């Protein structure tokens, strides 16, 4: 609702009461020079925002309200919008409400917000703003708030009727349902692939880094030197550490059968405890329980460079014949592998830390790149269940590649043929 008689007059905001002007002043104005009369700009009108809606912000933990209003033909650089807020159901005078945000009118469209098409609260052309707790605002769940939007041009303001809404927490984030759907679809593909792998053999391409595991262990046995195995910088909550621990089990079984010494220094005590159990079981399965040493897994420190210095020291003193670097790594990667290379050890790395891959590739004899770390367990064991998982991953990648190809073709065709394919690209963006 526009407040009546709000006008911009010679750049000055004039309240309705100010129109009661003394007759003498009016007379002076009338008899003043014509030039003065010409300098007065034309009276501008300002439109209040229309179709203002205020709703509880969906898919959140509470403490937020979503404000929606229709875009206006007057939207442009000169026009700005203000979001006004007051606690309680009211009635509230918009002029006295707190301004919680102000922004140019050609921003904050629904189409710019990260909504999927299935959760979009209004058409993409609507304006959209989320009032959240923080920075002087405290929205309490279950409390009513009056919210409205004001159009501002220069000193003039026009506002819509305040709308009452209550913020509430939600139990489901529907914005992330695409993620859940894709995860379930991928899970289904993985388990279907496992069933297929149980019925027939699946081809696995050669991974030289894993083929070299036997070679490395054999070399260490021949030289009578130990094998050093690192599980990375993260703890057991990280999939790369779990993958490293699983590979350790396979490596330890072969190490046990050759009765070679195994050294596994750790940065995390829980990972150490888990790896102790894995190693013990591997020695049992290899039929060499007596060869198992409890302290082959040992803790050094959680500190990054102290750990690096200690492992470098072990490399230089014990001169292991084979070094395995599995899991996640940071700046210590090159310090470890370069020291290992200087001792002449055969080095095999496997990491999902893409930023450290160049260092591993340049200093190690073999490197398992990214997903090969997760494939190692299946490759070494050749169990149908594990191999089936790999096939599932490949199908997942094929689907992603297919979607990428379709998206590229659509975007290119849209540009070349001047066709409107925005809806299709939006669909891809929403589903990603």
């Amino acid at each position: 609702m526009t407040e009546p008689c709000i006008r911009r007059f010679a750049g000055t905001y004039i309240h309705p009461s100010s129109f009661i002007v003394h007759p003498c002043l009016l007379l002076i104005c009338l008899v003043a020079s014509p030039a003065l009369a010409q300098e007065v700009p034309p009276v501008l009108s300002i439109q209040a925002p229309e179709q203002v809606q205020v709703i509880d912000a969906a898919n959140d933990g509470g403490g937020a309200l979503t404000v929606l209003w229709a875009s206006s033909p007057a939207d442009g650089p000169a026009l700005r919008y203000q979001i006004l807020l007051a606690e309680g159901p009211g009635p509230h005078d918009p002029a006295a409400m707190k301004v919680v945000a102000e922004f140019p009118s050609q921003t904050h469209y629904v189409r710019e917000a990260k909504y999927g098409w299935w959760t979009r609260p209004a058409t993409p052309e609507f304006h959209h703003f989320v009032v959240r707790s923080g920075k002087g605002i405290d929205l309490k769940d279950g409390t009513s708030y009056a919210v409205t939007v004001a159009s501002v041009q220069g000193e003039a303001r026009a506002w819509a009727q305040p709308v009452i809404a209550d913020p509430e927490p939600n139990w489901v984030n529907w914005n992330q349902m695409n993620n859940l759907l894709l995860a379930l679809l991928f899970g289904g593909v993985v388990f279907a692939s496992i069933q297929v792998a149980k019925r027939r053999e699946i081809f696995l391409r050669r991974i030289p880094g894993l083929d070299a595991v036997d070679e490395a262990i054999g070399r260490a046995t021949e030289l009578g030197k130990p094998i050093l195995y690192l599980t990375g910088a993260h703890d057991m909550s990280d999939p790369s550490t779990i993958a490293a621990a699983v590979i350790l089990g396979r490596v330890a079984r072969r190490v046990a059968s050759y009765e070679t010494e195994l050294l596994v220094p750790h940065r995390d005590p829980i990972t150490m405890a888990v790896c102790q159990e894995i190693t013990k079981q591997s020695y049992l399965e290899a039929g060499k329980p007596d060869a198992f040493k409890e302290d082959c897994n040992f803790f050094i420190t959680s500190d990054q460079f102290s750990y690096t210095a200690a492992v470098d020291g072990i490399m230089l003193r014990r001169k292991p014949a084979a070094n395995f670097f599995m899991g996640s790594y940071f700046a210590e990667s090159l310090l470890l592998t370069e020291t290992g290379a200087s001792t002449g050890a055969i080095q095999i790395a496997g990491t999902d830390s893409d930023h450290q891959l160049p260092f591993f590739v340049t200093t190690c004899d073999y490197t398992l790149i990214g997903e090969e770390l997760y494939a190692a367990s299946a490759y070494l064991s050749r169990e149908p269940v594990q191999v089936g998982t790999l096939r599932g991953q490949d199908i997942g990648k094929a689907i992603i590649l297919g979607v990428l190809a379709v998206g590229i073709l659509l975007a290119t065709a849209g540009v070349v043929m001047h066709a409107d394919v925005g809806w299709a690209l939006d669909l891809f963006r929403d589903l990603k």
Partner: protein
Amino acid sequence: MIFLRRQVPLLITMITGLVFAAQYYVPHPASELLLTSATKWLQIIGGFALVLGVTSLFHVHAVKIRRKEAGWGYSVILYASTLVTIVVGLWASGKEAIDGTMTAFGWIYSFMMVPLQGTMFAILAFFIASAAYRSFRARSREAAVLLVAAVIVMMGRVPLGEYLIPVSGDISQWILNVLNASVRRAILIGVSLGAVALSFKIIFGVERSYLGGGKE
């Protein structure tokens, strides 16, 4: 016994795995509270696990000292420095400074730990140089490609290089933004799918070797 050693851990893994996977889709404060509580529990367990770690560390070095193994003197230094730091830390209530005055604990951290860490990190520059020297010798076609790409990127990233070869900046940016970024993203897609598949295998008990062994 097998039930306690195998089925119960698998059941706990499955339930907690499913609950915390679902937690990602539930924005309600109760869900956040559950995650916060679990994180605190993990921190508490981690604190107790540190006892395991320190015990392991002391045991390994005690054996070294007893057997007078090579470098056993370093083990004595480790014992001494650990004990001194613990005593000094308890004396200072774990604070590095009290009323603006540095405590002995703070001194150990600022003038021993930080310089030592800085020294280790600084060594990285020399290691990069030696690794680069070995890798960039154009002994194979792949190494030659690596060498050429590295030279272009290096020239494009320093002012002198861009002054000598003006186009190197643009080519360097193209290599980083197109070739490098696309390969990194491809690796990340593979890594993400691998991690999700591994998580599925663990939650549903397909992958059990992390429990300590393979088949029953």
